[in-house]
């Protein structure tokens, strides 16, 4: 790997130039493997449908056409409202979720808390065992009367066991015990310690889990499928899922779908799939770079000493 050649700074605090170049080459190749498919998806989405049938997926379209987007965004008002709904659910959900998750993970990370393993188990157990779709649906629809409500889209994803346990681990490893002891000696209560000391130091962890939460809320189409019937409350992902399924149904119409209307002739089934992927990603693709600024090393420097 890297040798301690070169000047005294290299090899100790930085990797050698040679290694850097090698790594960059490898990373570039990997990056191309990740970017190329996305570009291809975009290119196919603006290709004329018949060209796709005849020539397959090509990076440079033989014939441009924005028809796929027109077909999906039949009514710009509907799409904008869906974006809005999704954004609302995502924001509210992620905010509440990160608060709940960090509050739950903190006690689990405190070694002095005797029941930490029990409560870890309580949350982990739900990752493996669950009652199934029907009982779960009954709780939301019949007991809580949350059918057609935004809360039905928010509550289920508030506490993911995996995120809780990852957060717990982050707390345990990046917050030195000595720091918390020091705070205690100074007379701080657990909650104060939590807010003033732990949270600021755990920024990378909170950024990570927030990012995952946002993505999970943004991408969900299953909850609206089950609970929402009011057209105005549908989220973006669900609308896209619906368009895709309609195309699928109409394209593979079995003998039961007797009256196939003229609409089928022009369904841009292949290009629209790709267009939907692009629309689905939309603004959320900027979420990652946004959170990147929190992935900064060295927040704990001086915390122990000071």
């Amino acid at each position, binding site marked *: 790997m890297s040798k301690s050649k070169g000047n005294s700074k290299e090899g100790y605090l930085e990797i050698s130039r040679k290694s850097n170049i090698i790594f960059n080459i490898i990373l570039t190749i990997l990056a191309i493997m990740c970017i190329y498919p996305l570009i291809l*998806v975009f290119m196919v989405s603006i290709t004329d449908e018949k060209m796709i049938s005849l020539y397959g997926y090509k990076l440079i379209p033989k014939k441009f056409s924005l028809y796929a987007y027109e077909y999906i965004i039949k009514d710009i008002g509907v799409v904008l409202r869906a974006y809005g709904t999704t954004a609302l659910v995502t924001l509210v959900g992620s905010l509440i979720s990160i608060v709940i998750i960090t509050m739950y993970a903190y006690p689990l990370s405190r070694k002095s808390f005797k029941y930490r393993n029990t409560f870890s188990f309580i949350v982990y157990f739900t990752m*493996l065992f669950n009652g199934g779709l029907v009982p779960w649906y009954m709780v939301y629809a019949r007991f809580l009367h949350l059918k057609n409500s935004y809360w039905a889209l928010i509550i289920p994803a508030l506490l993911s066991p995996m995120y809780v346990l990852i957060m717990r681990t982050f707390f345990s*490893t990046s917050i030195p015990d000595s720091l918390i002891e020091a705070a205690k000696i100074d007379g701080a209560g657990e909650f104060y310690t939590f807010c003033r000391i732990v949270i600021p130091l755990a920024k*990378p962890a909170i950024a990570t889990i927030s990012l995952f939460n946002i993505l999970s809320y943004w991408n969900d189409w299953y909850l609206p499928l089950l609970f929402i019937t009011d057209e105005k409350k549908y989220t973006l992902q669900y609308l896209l899922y619906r368009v895709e399924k309609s195309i699928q149904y109409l394209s593979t119409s079995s003998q039961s779908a007797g009256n196939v209307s003229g609409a089928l002739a022009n369904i841009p089934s292949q290009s629209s799939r790709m267009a939907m992927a692009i629309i689905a990603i939309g603004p*959320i693709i900027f979420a990652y770079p946004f959170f990147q600024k929190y992935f900064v090393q060295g927040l*704990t420097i001086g915390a122990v000493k000071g």
Partner: protein
Amino acid sequence: MAKSFNKSLANEQQIKKQSSIKNFCIEFKKNKVLFFMLIPGLIVLLINNYLPMPGVLLAFKDYNYKDGFFKSAWCGFENFKYLFMSGKAWTITRNTIMYNVIFIIISITIPVALAIILNELRNRKLAKFYQSVFFLPYFLSWVVVSYLVFALLSSDMGVVNAALSKLGLKTHNWYAEPKYWYFIIPFVNTWKWTGYDIVVYLASICGFDKSYYEAAAVDGATKFQQITKITIPLLKPIIIILTLLKVGKIFYSDFGLFYIVPKNSGAINSATDVIDTYVYRGLRESADVGMSAAAGFYQAIVGFIVVCTANYITKKIDKENALF
């Protein structure tokens, strides 16, 4: 250090003799705030997971709409039979476990290595760029991925076959030959998830105290030594936790990867059929709640036993980092 350790050990043994409810009260008084912090999470768990939990019992009932949950008849292990009945039971179990093991091994090597490399790159702007790019595959749904794979592997229009024939090599009907899928599946899975896993490890590394590295550098340690002696040991807890979490899901599979990407082409099923796809194929259009509950129970109970065992072993070796 040893003295206080012995002391706390003796304390614990003493407490065990008292009743557990009393213990709870003591602990509650001592750490009231911690308990209160747990409450919002517990409420969500209650509503979302524990209230419906009795549904697990549906696996043992012959659920009928008229009789509902309570009056439907018990039917023992009847609902489980179809999982083991056909000659496929061994294949799907083998595939499920094998792929999960491969995925676990890959996920604790490649993303870790990449995260470390990214952290060490000299040009921070480039590093950030790479990080973002690696994350992109996550955004593409399995449906889109299946079409991209199809564009590569399609028999008549696929890129791979076109390239092979240009080079004068034999073309293959990729969706008809199982053996290649043992490589295609892990490859596609790694491509999709590595960026996501990298984020977790990178966030961990950011939490490490830089003074460790500075001290090591002063002592004359090379970069390589710093990585192996500081970074990797510090990553141990998160790696262990993630592994334990994945181990618990050893009988579950990502449905999109195993059903949608192979485009449900029966010919390669021996390589791509896993428990989840088997259940889906078997119960499609069937309204049988009991049978699907049975499948879920089967996967859960096996995962539970495995993870408890793994957790137990972890506790013996490294008490701090166990799951529970």
